[in-house]
């Protein structure tokens, strides 16, 4: 007797349909699993046999063959367990499986259906490919029910799934997980809690409003990390589709909280400088897993101690900074992950951290400082629009109550500026290429002259010229102004590092 059911494996954010066929025929009692199954899938034989027996279901005493199609695709993981078990039971009973139905889940030996990673991604893919019903582990049901247009069946154990399919005891479909409204002002770290640092705070506001990347340079202990953490709080809350994108990445990594799968707070990731290439951009054996840059998708990637990172690792950031996504090729095939993030980089001005401070003497030789700064220059810095120096805050200021705007107020301005940008040009200012910059950020004669005069006096490169221009556009948008005034240009020229005139 023959039964065919469907399941789904993942390659990045793409699904791959797997057809599970069980055939119980005459012959010597045995259990064959064919179809390029990796070790983790081959072990399903033991799990499935025990799960069926311990669910008080009959295991066919026959020549049993389970085929996983398509045969050329390598299959890994335990997601197929449930589909394999269901196909075997149905083949034994000679029952027809329900149509347009897929099964996801790992089996425990007692028949319980266990969590698997990436359920959200798989369910979305199945819905888009014509499936009407999907059985998922009960633990992952809330996550799966974020997807509308497909019936989600929470599966506790194999016995209840079989009972439902046989029509004996139907399972109640999981109600749609209503995306709870974004909490109005849940801000983890408020700008108003940071003492001083007005310059850096303003740079972060501009970064949030225009989608610009930021570099902060300053001595250890100046508060760079704290400032970077504040950025997530002045960005607008995630929109529904953005929140779903974030949830998909977390789902792949199995990091989605079971009950509140949707989070409206922008991700903040701060990889250590020892991070490997695979850890940062994604990778791993077989099919690649998302890295830190994809975890930071729609949020903030904080790269502290920029000069301590391996040059090759930093170079790898260029593609995602440019394209907003990363393509990784591994033996298991090529996968793409989204990686659109705001980069906040931080560095000391020199190895000892005190160069140019004026209050404490720097102990580095000029050659060492030169080498250190050379490490910072190059193509990565070319993509960073805002560069600010951050100094230690004097202790007299620390003792006082901090004064300054709350993040919620800054966020209002950011939201308004972003709306103005999107209405005018359909993208944030940071993504304006020179041709579109000329069209959407035309300069009147006075601001143009100022920018040109500066460029000539400081030997600004073409890139530096456009960078200042883009930042001036954002400064004007924060003012609610359509025209870029001279003072916007002057302010924009203030956010650069002394030595990096480019």
């Amino acid at each position, binding site marked *: 007797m023959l039964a065919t059911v469907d399941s789904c494996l993942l390659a990045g954010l793409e699904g791959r349909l797997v057809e599970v066929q069980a055939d119980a025929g005459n012959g010597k009692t045995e259990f064959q699993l064919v179809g390029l199954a990796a070790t983790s899938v081959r072990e399903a034989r033991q799990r499935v046999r025990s799960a069926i027996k311990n669910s008080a279901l009959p295991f066919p005493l026959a020549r049993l063959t389970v085929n996983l199609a398509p045969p050329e695709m390598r299959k890994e993981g335990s997601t197929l367990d449930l589909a394999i078990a269901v196909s075997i039971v149905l083949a034994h009973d000679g029952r027809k499986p329900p149509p347009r139905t897929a099964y996801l889940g790992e089996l425990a030996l007692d028949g319980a259906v266990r969590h698997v990673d990436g359920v959200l991604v798989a369910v979305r893919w199945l819905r888009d490919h014509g499936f009407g019903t999907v059985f998922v582990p009960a633990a992952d049901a809330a996550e799966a029910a974020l997807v509308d247009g497909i019936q989600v069946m929470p599966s506790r154990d194999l016995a209840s799934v079989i009972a439902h399919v046989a029509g004996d005891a139907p399972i109640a479909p999981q109600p749609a997980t209503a995306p709870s409204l974004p909490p109005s002002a849940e801000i983890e770290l408020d700008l108003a809690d940071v003492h001083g640092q007005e310059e850096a705070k*303003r740079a972060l506001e501009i970064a949030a409003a225009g989608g610009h990347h930021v570099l902060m340079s300053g001595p250890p202990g100046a508060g760079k990390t704290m400032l970077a953490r504040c950025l997530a709080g002045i960005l607008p809350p995630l929109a529904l589709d953005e929140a779903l994108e974030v949830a998909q990445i977390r789902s792949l990594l199995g990091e989605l909280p079971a009950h509140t799968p949707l989070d409206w707070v922008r991700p903040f990731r701060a990889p250590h400088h020892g991070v490997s290439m695979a850890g940062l951009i994604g990778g791993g054996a077989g099919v690649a897993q998302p890295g830190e840059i994809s975890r930071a998708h729609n949020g903030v990637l904080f790269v502290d101690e920029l000069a301590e990172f391996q040059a090759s690792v930093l170079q790898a950031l260029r593609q995602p900074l440019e394209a907003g996504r990363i393509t990784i090729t591994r033996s298991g095939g090529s996968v793409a992950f989204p990686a659109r993030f705001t980069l906040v980089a931080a560095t000391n001005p020199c190895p000892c951290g005190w160069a*140019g401070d004026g209050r404490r003497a720097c102990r580095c030789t000029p050659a060492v400082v030169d080498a250190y700064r050379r490490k910072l220059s190059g193509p990565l810095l070319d993509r960073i629009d805002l560069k600010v120096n951050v100094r230690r805050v004097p202790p007299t200021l620390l003792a006082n109550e901090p004064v300054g705007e709350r993040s919620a107020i800054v966020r209002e301005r950011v939201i308004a500026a972003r709306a103005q940008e999107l209405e005018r040009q359909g993208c944030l200012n940071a993504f304006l290429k020179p041709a579109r910059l000329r069209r959407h950020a035309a300069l009147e004669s006075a601001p143009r002259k100022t920018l040109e005069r500066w460029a000539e006096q400081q030997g600004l490169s073409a890139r530096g010229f456009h960078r200042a221009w883009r930042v001036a556009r954002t400064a004007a948008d924060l003012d609610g102004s359509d025209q870029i005034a001279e003072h916007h240009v002057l302010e924009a020229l203030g956010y650069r590092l002394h030595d990096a005139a480019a």
Partner: protein
Amino acid sequence: MQPPDEASLHARGRWPPAPGPRAAIVGSRNASPYGEAVAEELARELAAAGVVIVSGLAVGIDAAAHRGALNGGGVTVAVMGTGVDIVYPAAHGELAARIIAGGGALVSQFPDGTLPRRHQFPARNWTMAAISDVVVVVEADQRSGALITAEAALELSKDVMAVPGSVFSPMSVGTHGLIRDGAALVQNTRDVLAALKVPRSEVLDDPLKTPQRLGFELGRDADGIVIHLSDTMAVSAAELARKLQLPIAEVVGRLTSLELEGAVRRLDAGYVRSLRRGKGRA
């Protein structure tokens, strides 16, 4: 330590120079804009008065002193811690060439091909003191090599002079220490000429001339940003905004505008007052 004999020094250029007074102008590599301006000014006026300016070809005060001497049309000698065929730091190749072209010399007690090594520089400092009649320390923090030159000068019975600075500046801790210990205070070029016993020259018609060299008229700067800036220590835009109670966006913009005018300079940690207008030295 016994410094080598003048005649035994390796040299490129004219060595020894024509007989006459020699002043060493030394100081930290991490000089403040104030220190560099003083070194350049002193060297320029002394060189114009016929004094040979001796220094160490390092960045900061040394380079400013050599440059000042050349600008004053005078002769300057660079005492090197490497062989005279190896310019260290390499970025000073052009400066070294100008020194030779200007009738001065690169000299060293180390044979050709000697690479920079840490221990060679104190010895070089002794040589600087030995071939000079007076040592002027412009800026030095507590551990600066310039203090070794001053110590050597004392051992060799040469005059030690020091330029005062701000009491807040770490770059003046060493020079203030020297003054406290009896070094002569340098307020202007005349002080150094007097120590060298050079007859009063015409350059210095007014010995009490106070060094008023703000590169702009204060009236132009209506909100007084510039008077809150120092010429030794950088003040950040954030500090200025707090002091002036102005929005940070405005302060950053005005500072850029002042920078365009040449009235302020931007350093790593913030802004300083420019001591000389228009000379956009980076």
